[in-house]
């Protein structure tokens, strides 16, 4: 039973981390009804950011957190104004945004190859120092626990933002009913831009810890992570950022159980999970319908 | 009973719930060929749900829908359409990217047993002059007419009309009244869901008032206005 306990605990750590991986995608979807297909690519950029801070300046990845938070917020805000309002005026914003952000994903990936080259990069897990930590008789690397803690903190901050701040409350109003929110005098564009920036910054933040939790950093990692994130937020319920926590946990547990008992098929997991959930329970655990006819 | 007065549609004890909400809770009624039945009731009382159930947009929890004597509960929508049931939508829903002519042609090709000439349909609905325009470029009352034209192109025997009067000006409303009456005169049975009491009064022979998925009243409109339960449902709701 030791193996099972190990898998379940590891799944918990992975789950908390993966909630952070998915939450930005869900926030953007919830507020703008847009699927940011470049989500994984922003995560990749965040990972490179941490890599270079460590590699060139010797900074601990934890220092990358505040820096990237600011940088990616600053990238996200103008990007929103550049792309989103125009899209939302079109006939089919959901589909068109899907295609557009796919284009953006291609641009980022190509640019990343130019700038960072195609070589795989990593950050040694020993940056967090110390021997592995013993929890409930099982031994885990410190990097897992740090990643899980950051994941939990990230979700907690987004929760605090949404439920205990003025712009956060406005954000929830927009999620519930966009036109109503606009009618009550909420500046939909400003609040959405902020949510967009936060969504991208959350992805970048998750990227900082991807070398420890997901694997080597490379320019082409984005699309796979987008699909995984999508699976997570669909499980947790689309458009409900806090539901992502549950989605992440389910994904994390499923992943660790697969890797423990059925390792060679674990790559299939996100894809199969995604298809099954979409077909069986397209609303995730809460309301939002995604079916037609 | 002569064959002519046999109901074309019989709806019996329909039940449907969405989550905790009972949208239909035992409603029953029938319509004879050439009859215009009004369906009234406060918002959320289940009128549109009724139309959706009859056209097969979703399945029922229990109850029976018989069309021309045949139980159609389990038929998919397009089969019901081909049997002779059609509708207009509360929010007009033409094929926006297709021309007016194409909108009607699809329905006449796929919709019925007897092929209806699209040009003729456009003539009687007054859309003939704009048949080459894209449906998306029409105003909303033209789109309502186009919805109606598409329905007529399938040669229906039963037409379910959902809030077709809303948003029409008095002139258009009068024309719509005549149009619906003319359809009934050809033997088409009509179910008219409507908020506008005045419009209902002018087109219907008989009305059913619904509240919370149940029948509250059935009879003549002027009697309904005096029925305390109806008054309460409309004012209290």
């Amino acid at each position, binding site marked *: 039973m030791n193996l099972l306990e190990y898998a379940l605990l590891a799944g918990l750590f992975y789950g908390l981390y993966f909630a952070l991986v998915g939450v930005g995608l869900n926030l953007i979807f919830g507020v703008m009804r847009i699927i940011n297909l470049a989500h994984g690519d922003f995560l990749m950029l965040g990972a490179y950011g941490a890599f270079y801070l460590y590699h060139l300046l010797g900074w601990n990845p934890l220092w990358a957190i505040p820096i990237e938070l600011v940088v990616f917020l600053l990238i996200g805000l103008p990007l929103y104004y550049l792309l989103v309002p125009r899209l939302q005026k*079109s006939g089919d914003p959901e589909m068109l945004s899907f295609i557009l952000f796919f284009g953006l994903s291609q*641009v980022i990936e190509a640019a990343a190859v130019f700038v960072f080259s195609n070589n795989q990069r990593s950050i040694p897990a020993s940056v967090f120092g110390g021997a592995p930590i013993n929890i409930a008789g099982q031994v885990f690397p410190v990097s897992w626990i740090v990643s899980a803690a950051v994941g939990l903190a990230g979700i907690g901050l987004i929760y605090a933002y949404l439920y205990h701040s003025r712009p956060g409350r406005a954000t929830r109003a927009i999620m519930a009913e966009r036109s109503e929110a606009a009618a009550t005098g909420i500046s939909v564009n400003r609040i959405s831009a902020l949510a967009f920036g936060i969504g991208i910054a959350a992805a970048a933040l998750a990227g900082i810890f991807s070398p420890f939790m997901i694997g080597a950093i490379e320019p082409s990692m984005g699309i796979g992570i987008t699909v995984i994130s999508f699976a997570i937020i669909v499980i947790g319920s689309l458009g409900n950022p806090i539901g992502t926590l549950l989605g992440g946990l389910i994904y994390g547990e499923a992943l660790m159980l697969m890797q423990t008992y059925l390792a060679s098929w674990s790559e299939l997991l*996100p894809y199969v999970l995604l298809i099954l959930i979409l*077909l069986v329970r397209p609303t995730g655990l809460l309301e939002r319908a995604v079916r037609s*006819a | 009973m002569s064959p002519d007065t046999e109901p074309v549609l019989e709806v019996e004890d329909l039940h449907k719930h969405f989550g905790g909400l009972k949208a239909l809770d035992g409603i029953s009624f029938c319509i004879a060929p050439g009859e215009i039945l009004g369906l009234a009731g406060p918002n959320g009382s289940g009128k549109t749900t009724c139309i959706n159930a009859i056209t097969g947009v979703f399945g029922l929890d229990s109850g029976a829908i018989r069309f021309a004597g045949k139980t159609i509960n389990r038929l998919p929508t397009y089969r019901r359409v081909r049997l002779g049931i059609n509708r207009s939508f509360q929010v007009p829903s*033409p094929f926006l*990217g297709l021309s007016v002519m194409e909108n009607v*042609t699809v329905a006449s090709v796929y919709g019925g047993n007897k092929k209806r000439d699209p040009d003729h349909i456009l003539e009687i609905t007054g859309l003939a002059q704009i048949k080459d325009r894209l449906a998306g470029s029409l105003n909303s009352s033209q789109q309502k007419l186009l919805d109606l034209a598409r329905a007529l192109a399938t040669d229906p025997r039963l037409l379910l009309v959902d809030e077709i009067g809303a948003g029409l000006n008095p002139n258009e409303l009068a024309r719509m009244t005549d149009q619906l009456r003319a359809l009934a005169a050809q033997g088409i049975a009509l179910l008219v869901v409507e908020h506008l009491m005045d419009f209902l009064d002018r087109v219907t022979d008989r009305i059913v008032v619904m509240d919370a998925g149940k029948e509250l009243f059935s009879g003549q409109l002027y009697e309904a206005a005096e029925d305390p339960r109806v008054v309460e449902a409309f004012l209290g709701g």
Partner: protein
Amino acid sequence: MVVAITVLAYVFIPYGYNNQFLLFNMMMYMALAQGLNIIYGYTGYLPFGYVGFFGAGAYGSALVIIYLHWSPFPAVLLGGLAAVLVGMLLIPLFRLSGAYFSIANLAAAEALYYIIANPHLASVTQGPYGISLPQVYDPNAAYWTMLAILVFALILSGLMRRSRFGLALGAIRENPVSAEMAGVNVVRSRAIAWLLSAFIAGVSGAAFGWYISVFYPETVFSLSITVFAIVFVLFGGSGTLLGPLVGTLVLYGAYNYIGISTPQYFQLTYGLLIILLVLFLPSGLTSLLRKRGIDVP
């Protein structure tokens, strides 16, 4: 007309221009773009995992050649059927709307890739070690087969545009609920378009596998194949016969001019192009002509 010009071009160009592989790829992408057009242009569903059919076709035909010693022509057809089979398995995805369909379809293609590339199945699919078909190597025959596939795709797409069936698909694309109220069997019509589209990708994949005769799972399941086809269709104009042809001709030509040595240049250009298209020209090049009142087939 369009079909005739295309055929003549591919019959005679090889005499003056000796890069057969380029011509083959161009035909292949034209067929794929047309196949994608059938499902996206005419029904509005954008299959991000379109390459899954391509890979299924390549593997389906290669496996019957290797294990059952089929000759290439029936094997190519079988590749098409393998794709149709995959397509049938995916029909439930149509319960999903818009972007959810796209992303679920992408997931399905990835899942298929991981199944085929899984080392545990190496005894059947040869897993990550790839396929080699020296026994049937014949690029010329594969070239003509591809041309036949392209002609088939063009005729099919042309028929779609003019037929009752095409009109029904258009109605479904605009509004599935209303299409049902017009008497259209939405589920079946969509499935037919989907399977035809899958078939075209399947036979294209099979012919491609035959032409190059050595390939790996990542060759025939590469996301870039979907991307190319989508961009060609969007650029030329979806829902038309000419659009995907023009899109492929211009962009694939450009790709070969600037992209071969550093594909990233091209990926970059592509990505930018997609963004600009969505923002400024969502109906593609051919819509420019149509705005001037020129009827585009």
